[in-house]
């Protein structure tokens, strides 16, 4: 069954995760028990099948992409650190988050990072642009077979026309931010993790 000892969570690990993600001690332990309950193979990592067992992800048209976002480039297993790193994007933003070290990088749950997470769901080839083809793929996932290709193409064109500002016929990250300017991303992309 492998080394059981490696599946226990050590204090140093909790500290590191705390620093990296900003979760509190009790939140981390709680999420660890959730991680282990998802981990049916009991080898300390999650595979794609483990995620697909969650019903809300299974019926979500973007479910596969969200699951993909947990796994680092090219890998098939994600360990607890990676799991927490992705979940950290959904931590609510607190007003009084004192940043003791002003030179540290932006926290994982800032608005910018949340939007970047969402952007990466659509930008499959990681070229920092959402092209017309990628939009078509998303549309196809969302509407099934009810609408024909040409119609979907027109909708994609219309979307790019709305969002594109520099005329390169694709949506860059800055244009993406502009589109979602009026959307309350901080609240919609946050989960209230119990402490």
């Amino acid at each position, binding site marked *: 069954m492998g080394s059981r000892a490696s599946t226990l969570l050590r204090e140093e690990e909790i500290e590191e995760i705390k620093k990296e993600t900003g979760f509190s001690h009790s939140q981390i332990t709680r999420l660890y028990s959730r991680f282990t309950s998802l981990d049916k193979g009991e080898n300390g990592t999650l595979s794609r099948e483990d995620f697909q067992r969650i*019903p809300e992800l299974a019926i979500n048209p973007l479910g596969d992409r969200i699951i993909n976002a947990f796994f680092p480039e090219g890998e098939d297993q994600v360990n607890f650190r990676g799991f927490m790193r992705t979940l950290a994007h959904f931590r609510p933003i607190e007003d009084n988050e004192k940043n003791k070290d002003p030179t540290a990088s932006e926290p994982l749950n800032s608005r910018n990072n949340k939007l970047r997470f969402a952007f990466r769901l659509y930008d499959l080839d990681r070229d920092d642009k959402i092209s017309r083809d990628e939009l078509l793929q998303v549309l196809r996932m*969302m509407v099934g077979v009810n609408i024909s290709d040409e119609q979907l193409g027109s909708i994609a*064109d219309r979307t790019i026309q*709305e*969002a594109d*500002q520099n005329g390169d016929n694709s949506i860059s990250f800055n244009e993406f931010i502009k589109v979602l300017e009026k959307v309350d991303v901080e609240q919609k992309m946050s989960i209230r993790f119990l402490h």
Partner: protein
Amino acid sequence: SLGRTSTSSSEESDEESVAEMEAARLKEELEEKKKFIASLKSRPWRMNRKLKCLKDAQQFVEKFEGYLGKGKGQTLYILKVTMSKKWNKFNRAFKNIMTAFIPWEKRIKEVESHFGASVGSYFIFLRWLYGMNLMLFVLVFGLVVLPEVLLGAPYGTIPRKIVPNSEKDKAMDVAILLEFEGYFKYSPLFYGYYNNQRTVGFLHYRLPLAYFLVGIGTFVYSLIAVVRRYANNSEEREFAFSWILFTSWDFLIGNSEAADSKFAAIITNIKESIVDEEDKKRCENVHARRCLRVLANLITFLCLCGSGYLIYYVVKRSVVFAAMDKDKVTWMEKNELELVVSLLGVAVPPLFEGISEMEEFHPRVALKWQLWRILALFIANLYSLTFALYDEVPLKFEKENAIKNATMWAMKENYGNGTMLSNSSAVAQPALHPADVMQGPCWETGIGIEFMKLTVSNIELAYLTILFSDFLRALLVRYLNYCWCWDLEAGFPSYGEFDISGNVLTILFSQAVIWVGTFFSPGLLGVNMIRLVTSMYIQSWAVMCCNIPHSKPFRISSHFYKVLLFIMLCASIIPVLYAIMVFPPSFDCGPFSEKQKMYDIITETIEKDFSAFWVTFFSYALNPGVVVLVVILMVLVIYYLKIVSKSYQKTNADLRKKLRMRREEEKNQMNNKDSSNHIMKDLEELLPKKTVIQLSTKDKMGESLKLSPKNGTMANGADGRFRNAVTRPPGPRMVGHLPGMPRLQIVSPGSARGRGQVIRW
């Protein structure tokens, strides 16, 4: 369990060690800064820069050396850090506990996951109303009802608090009690029970003043609560398609059937947005349509007048019935008023829907018109009811006068006899048992009773509607389907959808009735509390058991409901104010008896309880001239603010238009095309054949969207303009079959979509 290290014991040392770590880190930085200051002189920088850096470093050293240099300073610092961490922990634990107290959270989440956020928002609104009513209930109960019951004269001691002998033998009958007469009439539920003693009990609690202030206070509190939630919500059309693409999925959905409906809703949403775009570029100038719209509004107005008159007529009749002998009046005639008001609220809105077909508005605009009309209907009903009741009040005054004279005469007689017979100074009061005293017709209690009955009949009607139009219908469709000629589930009548707007307007109307009636009947709030709680349970059960998710995307934002609530609140203040200002209170019941006007209680309190200075101050301040001036000033301020805000909105719209034009121009320049309208031409082809706007649709597109009856139709049938497009639920998605999910993957076109899984007992 796996992974649970020794958390509790290590937390204390954990925090201290962290504090120590931070102290150590600061120490390091301090050393660095000191070294930096020392070496500053030898750096090859400009003088300005050196001075600035020096200043910064010195400030840093000053700030932190105190913490680290001396021993006491260090412990203080660690103490501060530990305290703040403990406080954070306490805060978090508190917030956790508070979330556990939010009522019905699990229930609402379940509804949301099955039916989407829009139906869930109705229940959230219901819960918020419950919270507001709870506050009002506590206010009224604690400040008015409890003092009267605990500190005031107990039941049976004074005439207004006891059932008079003339009614006593029937006072316990169920029929009488259901009418809120008998023992209910002479209880703290209604206005008439309250005594007009200036102060009660050993606390010298000024009950009449409290009653008046609480009556006004309920409106003030409701105003504050409603306005606080009045968030601004502008309908943004700038990024319409981008938002549909990126933000339309409802992540709260956890159930596959709801997910399918959400798919269909998204498709319909996209098509509607395209129609919207077309709409914007089109100016309608068809005279016939204008005539039809004027006609529709005229008919609506006539309906409103008709219903108002009907209510007025029924009130007159109910007065006649009340005067007749109780045994000769049937149940129907006794409750005619409430039945008519409730039924009008149920029957007229579908009529308005029919009228709106004539107008041919865009669906969203039509829905808004519909809601405004229903709101006008409810307000008209409420007002005609209230003012019809008020019409009866002068009659009651006449009766009162007659009784007053009679009692005076009786007392004089007794008094006269008494003094003639006895020489002692003890002039005994006429030894009349309180139950024998003739009581006047307490008009406030009368109105309170009417509102109470109206509320109860509203509740009954609401539950009966749920029972018949949802539950029985679902039962019939489910079980009769086995032996019926056509498919009951797919065609008529099929399962019902949850009617959000109808339900919201019903609770708004009931809330308005409560606001008007609370002044005359403090017990009304208690009844309302019961109603809201049972409503939450019964409706959430009914929705899960008998309804199916919407097939059309629902466009009404909750902001709109808040606007309606606000208007209802303002509309319900007026009848109460009218009653307070115009009618003198009854002479023998209620906390304001024997006063000329109800608001005299204020002047009385000022005169007797405040010092002379305040008396003169108020007498100057309440001078009519001053009051009029203040009112004019406020009106001017409001007008000014309105103009300013309008100009801002106009500027906003102008800027937005300019931005859009500039972007299009830039793009045209870059792409060297004459205009980007070729995209619009493509979109025209998306429209189905039957639409409001007669466009030249290409046949190819039109056919693929036409409804083919052979395919499985959606359970709700194929009516409405945009349902044509959805011929069958989305088929297998691009992703392969997922493990663990028992959903049917392939839906063959021929099978009707069975909704058998919906009913859960």
